[in-house]
């Protein structure tokens, strides 16, 4: 088991190095001179030249990347072009807010989707199943920023139950978390249902029934654990979607997380900040997938024994 975790961790490194390089490269494509952007159009040639030197902008890209990596392992992500503050510091301050939002959303999703998926599968083609699946498909088809606006109109502006934005207390968390959770809920529900349908026609389910196991425990004990294996994979993938969705949801609800920070930074052409945000997003996504893979091994003994 430990071996498995270590192996998975080792796989994380090359991917992250690649990710950072890729993002670094993409962002370097930004047109316009960084020094001019920072100093403004009125700056003298002299000052621009000094700044270019200071930031290492005249070095080849690969050298710039190397320097960035060296700083990064020391926890330094550079300084914001627009405020001059430390990128790492800013992100450290904002990250917990995004974490709070996404974790709440994924918990909501799992809590809602697994039972609905299971019930739908065990009553395939019933009214519950049919309505559930239509709602799920609509859920997948709704853009989160629109859902957010509609929820604000209904529950905040019309009913006044929740604040329409900002981050003040638990009440302000509910609408954005729910908005963010909708699409994931829908898609985890669909996966749970279809893997459950797949599992309940397996031979070992018939074996269990032939032993005299009750319907209920055939589902809860024999089928569910097997059906969870694909569901867990999707939960991991959905977390990526959720992180992407956080950018939009945070914008709609003025939630002070790194999603909104990223959008603001893009508008200000603050590349170090954008770079930092994307790296943190990708790293979170990779770590979640690592956790998912470990969880996997707990559910599926076939994986566990391969590495014990």
């Amino acid at each position, binding site marked *: 088991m430990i071996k498995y975790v270590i192996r998975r961790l080792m796989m994380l490194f090359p991917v992250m190095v690649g990710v950072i390089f890729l993002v670094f490269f993409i962002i370097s494509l930004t047109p316009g001179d960084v020094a001019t952007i920072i100093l403004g159009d009125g700056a003298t040639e002299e000052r621009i030249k000094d700044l270019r030197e200071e930031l290492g902008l005249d070095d080849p890209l690969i050298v710039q990347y190397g320097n960035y990596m060296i700083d990064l392992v020391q926890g330094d992500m550079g300084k914001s072009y627009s405020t001059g503050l430390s990128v790492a510091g800013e992100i450290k301050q904002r990250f917990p807010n995004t974490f709070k939002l996404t974790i709440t959303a994924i918990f909501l999703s799992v809590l809602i989707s697994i039972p609905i998926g299971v019930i739908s599968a065990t009553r395939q083609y019933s009214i519950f199943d049919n309505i559930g699946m239509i709602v799920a498909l609509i859920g997948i088809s709704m853009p989160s920023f629109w859902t957010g606006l509609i929820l604000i109109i209904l529950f905040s502006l019309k009913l006044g139950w929740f604040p329409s934005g900002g981050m003040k207390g638990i009440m302000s968390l509910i609408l954005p978390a729910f908005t963010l959770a909708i699409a994931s809920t829908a898609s985890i529900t669909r996966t749970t249902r279809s893997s459950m349908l797949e599992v309940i*026609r397996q031979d070992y389910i018939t*074996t269990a029934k*032939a*032993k*005299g196991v009750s319907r209920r425990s055939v589902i809860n004990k*024999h089928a569910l654990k097997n059906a969870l294996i694909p569901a867990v994979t999707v939960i991991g993938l959905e977390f990526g979607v959720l992180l992407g969705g956080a950018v939009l949801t945070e914008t709609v609800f003025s939630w002070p997380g790194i999603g909104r920070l990223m959008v603001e930074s893009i508008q200000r052409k603050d590349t170090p900040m954008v770079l930092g945000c994307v790296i943190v997003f990708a790293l979170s996504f990779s770590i979640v997938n690592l956790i998912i893979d470990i969880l996997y091994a707990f559910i599926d003994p*076939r994986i566990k024994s391969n590495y014990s």
Partner: protein
Amino acid sequence: MKGTVLKVENLAVRYVTEDGIVQAVNGIDISVEKGSTLGLVGETGAGKTTTALSVLRLIPDPPGEVVSGKIELDGKALMELPESKMEKIRGGLVSMIFQDPMTALNPVLKVGDQIAEAIKIHQQLSQDKALQKAREMLEMVGIPGARMNEYPHQFSGGMKQRVVIAIALSCSPKLLIADEPTTALDVTIQAQVLELMKELKEKMDMAMIMITHDLGVVAEVCDNVAIMYAGRIVEQGTLEEIFNNTKHPYTEGLFLSIPNIDDRKAELKPIRGLMSDPFNLPPGCSFCDRCDYAMDKCATEKPEKVHFSPDHFVECHLYPDNKEFQLKGGKG
């Protein structure tokens, strides 16, 4: 005679699918005496598994539908029982062993727990006691008790089938239905598993339905034999009657298509053609288009049962008018 364990009357089952209706079982009667073994023989698609699942009332619904039939197990009319009572019977009074041991065990549960589960359900034992009994069962089928904490993927095919047997026998059922228990196994393992089943059957004094398409297996373990074709039992009798007084052309065909140990030079003669389209069974005898003896009325009229002894009957147009008729090639 010690009395009957299982009596099936006029069982008919169909599957309603998008592509049409499969008439899988079309009005069959079976009875199994206490302590005896009935061989249910027929090629793939004959309806053997469907028959077996009907006895446990485990036909998948949808698409399966039991159209008619009475099933009496140990004096209980199963068709009328509520599901909760049926759960007590499955794995208790009657157990089943499935064809493919590779898929018959739950991959995420320990084998010991899978055996103990049946014991807990039917014998109201504590978890500890049930696990203890599971260990004994595992040892009885020839697997070291220490392996009960392992998962199915750590076992070979033959050992998995032993585990399945342990599960099936854990509550001393009166009837064991074995659905091609050795088909998926290596030849060498087949003999071992078969031997084990025979031994345990004697020891526990149960009745058994052995589903197979292997006449060698039949000769080895069965007392009575029912030959199934396209959802009908076309010939039934004692082992002796079926082997030495073969009446149905299909039965004869089965014998001619296997190598004969006594006469190795004898030519193998597989039955020509394929089984009739299960979506569209012919109006007359289902075997008609493959039968070397077919007559005009075979295509239009369903043959009736003809009895040769209280146990031995055949469904074929060759006999009602001429009971002395002898098939050409068989052993008769």
